[in-house]
């Protein structure tokens, strides 16, 4: 849960967070008059006729439309394979959906495509999804947005989950990575502000737009670490600008509470990390070597952070009445200065994490988080970034799951190979640029 205070930190209490259910009209009117809209077969939301993906849940409407043109999805009778999903296609240049922007060849998201091309009801297994509901038991299909898993490579993965208390997942995550491990990865997490309208659309648009910027390799400049850091910082700032434009563009008309979201991103390029954030989504660096401190890269733009700066202990500040009020955010009503809190760091063996407050609400201290992650990884037979992220999401849900939870991880071996740990550790006392706040 993330709120925007109505005034400065010392002002009156923020408005109560509007639950998504409250903003939904208690009475709804559905007209069957022919309209130029494309209804999402997964969640039922009416989208514009030329939409290629659902603005509410992200389902691929092109595949769904193809599947529903006939009465049944095209099915290969020999083995029941749905053919429609076998040939994902990008839109022509200039007509890409936000999901297509920054297309890098493979579909890194395992979650965007699937449900839409299988219209059999998941709940009863007997009916089919028509107008967003099963024609046998009436159950809507699970919203793919409620639980997203991405594993672009073996060393990068993430889980974005609705949690247990919210009616809608307003977190969004966008990841990409290349081989070999440590060469290049982009991890973006955006958390929709729950008291604003349609922030789930805003956060997805922001994360997708930011990743499109960050997928471009950074300029090498003169080849010095400082030159790289400067270029990387400019790229992150540019990503924030693009994400902010995408959020603003996600609403057509003026609404009283325009959609808004936070921003946290980390880019790995040849084992050097650059991180930046606006709002209270976080980037953590959690090195394996306990001699090296685990730490949050950057800092929150939040009332709690301001209190901590004024000397209030972390626990008190983060559980106080205004703890989730953020002081900067992306959106139409965003503050003028959106320069992200930037940090650069040369990786040693360890975990790079980008997460929303749905996780850190239950484990804020970097050292505690490192312990939590290490213990969770140790319990797994197959500890990959994705399975560890899932374990941390499970942890947050077990603690109550009061908010949407997103955990994105990159497993880094650090400069040099893992066989030269000693040397690497010695050499790699983090070469760290000072946080370069704007």
């Amino acid at each position, binding site marked *: 849960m993330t709120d925007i205070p109505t005034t400065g930190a010392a002002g009156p209490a923020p408005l109560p967070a509007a*639950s998504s*259910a*409250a903003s939904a009209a*208690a*009475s*709804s*009117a*559905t*007209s*069957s*008059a022919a309209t130029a809209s494309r209804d999402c077969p997964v969640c039922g939301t009416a989208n514009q006729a030329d939409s290629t993906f659902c603005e509410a849940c992200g389902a691929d409407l092109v595949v769904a439309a193809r599947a529903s043109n006939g009465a049944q999805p095209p099915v290969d009778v020999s083995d029941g394979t749905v053919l429609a999903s076998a040939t994902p296609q990008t839109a022509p240049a200039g007509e890409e959906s936000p999901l297509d922007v920054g297309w890098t060849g493979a579909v890194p998201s395992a979650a965007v495509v699937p449900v839409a091309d299988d219209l059999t009801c998941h709940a*009863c297994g*007997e009916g089919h999804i028509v*107008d*967003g*509901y*099963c*024609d*046998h*038991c*009436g*159950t*809507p299909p699970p919203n793919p947005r409620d639980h997203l898993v991405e594993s672009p490579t073996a060393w990068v993965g993430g889980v974005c989950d609705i949690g247990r208390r919210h*009616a809608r997942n307003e977190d969004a995550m966008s990841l990409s990575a290349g081989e070999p491990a440590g060469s290049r990865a982009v991890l973006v997490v955006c958390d929709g502000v729950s008291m604003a309208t349609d922030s789930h659309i805003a956060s997805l648009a922001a994360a997708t737009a930011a990743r499109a910027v960050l997928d471009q390799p950074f300029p090498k400049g003169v080849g010095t670490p400082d030159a790289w850091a400067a270029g990387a910082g400019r790229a992150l700032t540019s990503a924030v600008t693009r994400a902010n434009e995408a959020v603003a563009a996600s609403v057509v008309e003026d609404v009283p509470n325009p959609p808004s979201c936070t921003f946290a991103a980390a880019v790995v390029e040849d084992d050097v990390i650059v991180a930046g954030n606006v709002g209270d989504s976080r980037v953590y660096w959690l090195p394996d070597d306990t001699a090296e401190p685990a730490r949050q890269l950057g800092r929150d733009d939040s009332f709690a952070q301001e209190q901590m700066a004024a000397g209030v202990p972390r626990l008190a500040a983060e559980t106080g009445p205004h703890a989730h009020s953020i002081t900067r955010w992306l959106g139409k009503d965003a503050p003028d200065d959106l320069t992200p809190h930037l940090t650069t760091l040369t990786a040693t063996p360890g975990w790079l994490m980008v997460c929303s407050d749905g996780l850190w609400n239950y484990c804020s201290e970097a050292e505690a988080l490192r312990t939590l992650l290490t213990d969770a990884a140790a319990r797994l037979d197959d500890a990959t970034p994705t399975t560890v992220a899932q374990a941390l999401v499970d942890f947050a849900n077990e603690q109550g799951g009061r908010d949407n939870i997103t955990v994105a991880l990159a497993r880094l071996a650090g400069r040099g190979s893992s066989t030269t740990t000693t040397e690497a550790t010695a050499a790699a006392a983090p070469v760290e640029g000072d946080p370069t706040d704007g």
Partner: protein
Amino acid sequence: MADFTAEVFQNEFLPDGGTDVHAIVRVTSTGASAGASAGASAGLADPGSAAEVILIDTSGSMGRRGVQAAGEAAKAALAEIVDGTLFSIVSGNGTAQIVYPYSHQGALVPMSAHTRGEANRAIEGLRANGGTAMGTWLTLARQIFETVPHVTKRHAILLTDGVNEGETPQSLQAAVRSCVGAFQCDCRGVGDQWRVDEVRGIASALLGTVDLIPAPEEMAAEFEAMMRASMSRGVANSELRVWVPQGAELLFVKQVSPTLEDLTSRRTVVNPLTGAYPTGAWSDESRDYHVAVRLPARTLGQEQLAARVQFSLGGDPVAQALVKAKWSNDDSLTTRIDPAVAAYTGQAELATVIQEGLAAKAAGQDDVATSKLGRAVQLADQTGNEEMTSRLRKVVEIDDADTGTVRLKKGASKIDEMSLDTASTKTSRVRR
């Protein structure tokens, strides 16, 4: 071509453990008026596309003046029938006879200046005589319509002035049942000697209206209006289809506007989860339906489709509304009753207590009548239904509308009671 739209008004939020979902579905037609079709604009109905039968009470009780007025009313109706429409005039007493067309012409003839003139002359020959057996009239009407099986739009007007004493209630009911689906029938009672519940039973089963004509002189205007309304209906063969999920129970389906009509028992099975309810012919108009579904409760946060309500023409769905259910622990969402659902629920209760109150009064149970009509006064007052309050005022003395304290009015006229009864099922449209 007619366009139909369907809208749903409901509060989809249910509390923890909540099971019952109520929704008002509004079906609106545009371009359904017969006047909008090319044939009618040229002044000619497609020959054989519609058939009209006028059933006139010629029992002895009508008397010379009554039959003469009924004849004038029939002529006024004939004047409204579009040329080309098949028609027939039936006189009814203890039995039923076709007055026009003449026997050698068959049971129905197309309307023209010539046949209208012949029919008007035939009506002059009507005389009052004999008893009342409406079942025989309806049966003859059905047999007349059966001679033209290709005609989809079939409508009759039934006029009576008395109690159906010429046959048993069972035989009337059997005759009505045999006519269900064969034609639609609007019924009118003239004077105060007929029984509202008896005639309402016929009109309701045959998808028509029922009303009171206080004096014979007012018949002509009423017949003209009824026939004009029938002529304007360009869409027949329509039905409401209601799907509910496996495991759900459809509690009721009611038409709630323009008149109250419980459709629940008229269900025909489309498939195990879907039932169809006939809705008769449509003009350019809007009708509201109240659908109530009982679902097995789901856990908080879950959502499901509670009902899919479709309007279909000739078996093809042309409009659809989705009724949803979402379980929530937010009281501000779940305790709210949709205004349309509340208003029509109130109007349905109002109609019920008026009818029960009048029936109790007729049966001499004055205390029951007082309590029921008192509740009616209270409901009418609460909903600002001034028309019903003024009708009730003619039957009861209102001491306190707020608490529903009333006294039965001494010497209330039979006509006033009957007009309250017939008006009870007319609802005022809930505006959005």
